């Protein structure tokens, strides 16, 4: 019974999109589909400005709106707090895609199932490897781990770096951002 979450440090992110490519490969997505997308925000005032890249994906909300609206029960939260989609139950009604304020879901072109980031949990064979985006990140901007363990790398990093969910209390997000 873990509570998996992620920390993304946008001050380290250089916007190379390697995480998106790794994710697409890991999850066998079409080139035009992706679980990760990016927002670009201008930070600072002239002349000290920089372009902040904010990688976005499923926030693994504890109160996931996609789960509460899903009529078929295809969307659910597993015992480790990961929001998952049972592709055998999904009818592709796209209610979840509307309900997710982060636009984290995409519809699979072939199956019609509404898919999204699953923390690479399907690759899990009992051990818990880092998701593909985390292990591929060239600057170490991403940390994955158990939020319920106060001594995990991620829990310590959240406190040290004062990381916060991207949208305040819009949902009970388990992805934390350093900005």
């Amino acid at each position: 019974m873990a509570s998996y979450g992620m920390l993304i440090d946008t001050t380290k992110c250089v916007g190379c999109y390697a995480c998106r490519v790794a994710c697409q490969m890991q999850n066998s997505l079409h080139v035009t589909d992706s679980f990760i997308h990016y927002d670009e925000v201008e930070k600072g005032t002239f002349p000290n400005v920089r372009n902040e890249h904010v990688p976005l994906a499923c926030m693994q909300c504890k109160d996931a709106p996609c789960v509460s609206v899903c009529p078929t029960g295809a969307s659910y939260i597993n015992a480790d707090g990961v929001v998952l989609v049972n592709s055998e139950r999904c009818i592709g009604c796209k209610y979840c895609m509307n309900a997710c304020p982060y636009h984290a879901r995409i519809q699979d072109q072939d199956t019609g199932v509404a898919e999204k980031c699953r923390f690479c949990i399907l690759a899990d064979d009992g051990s818990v490897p880092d998701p593909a985006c985390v292990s591929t990140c060239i600057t170490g901007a991403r940390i994955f781990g158990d939020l319920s363990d106060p001594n995990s790398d991620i829990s310590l990093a959240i406190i040290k770096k004062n990381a916060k969910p991207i949208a305040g209390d819009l949902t009970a997000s388990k992805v934390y951002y350093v900005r």
Partner: protein
Amino acid sequence: MTETLPWGTSIAWYLFLAGLAAGAYATSALASFKDFRNTKRLQLIGRIVALVVLAVGLVLLMFDASAGMKNPGRFFYLVSNPTSVMSWGVVILAIFGVIIIVTLIIMLLKKAVPVWLDAIGLLLAFCTAGYTGVLIGVVKTYPFWNTALLPVLFVVSAFSAGMAAVFLGSAFFARKEVEGLGALKRLRLFLPIAETLLIIMLLLVTASANPAAAESVHRLIAGDLALPFWLGLVVIGLAFPFLLELVTIRVKAGSTGAAAIDVAGGAGVLVGGFLLRYLIIFAAVPLVFVL
């Protein structure tokens, strides 16, 4: 951020047709309460319209759910989640559908539809129209949808559209029966006013609550959706049927002139009813959350 919206034209049609079914049934039931004997064809028209448009709407909805169309057995899972408005909707529609069919059969057997049955049907018609508003009203992603006014607006518009469809059909097949339903027809003056007020409230309330919704409102009144909004919804869908009703208020019910008004005004109301859903769906602008 320009994202394509998950829901599009077929959902707009579905929201309209489900509401239309509810309104058509409600008109039948009310006509039955008022004067069962002399409105039998009109009631039949209402129940048939309700059944047909509800069926068409559901087919559209199913085709929009592509993973379900590939595996139709999955549609049985639809009632799995008690927190999902869509699950509730499926339950409501199933009961409503059965009631439409049962009352239709009773009428075709030339028996009287029990008042209690039509009363339950009326309640379910109300729930059906209301749920189409709640369905998108609970979606926080699009602040323009996310209001409790939407179900109220959809109920009023559904009743208006359903009544228009029934009187439109009756103009051809049951002209004389409309005579005794003056009070019901008078609602055609009241409903467009109520709908207009609700639309104004919706625009004002959402625009002041959130910048994304303000952008939606701007798109409707002065942006890319302004033409269908002003010409289609406001002029053809609301003002025209209202003014037509107002200036012809003394035309004798059951006359050819009254039938022509039912057809012309009714067509306007139906166009407006569809456009209302269409415009609300497509005016959606997502919440900005990365600041």
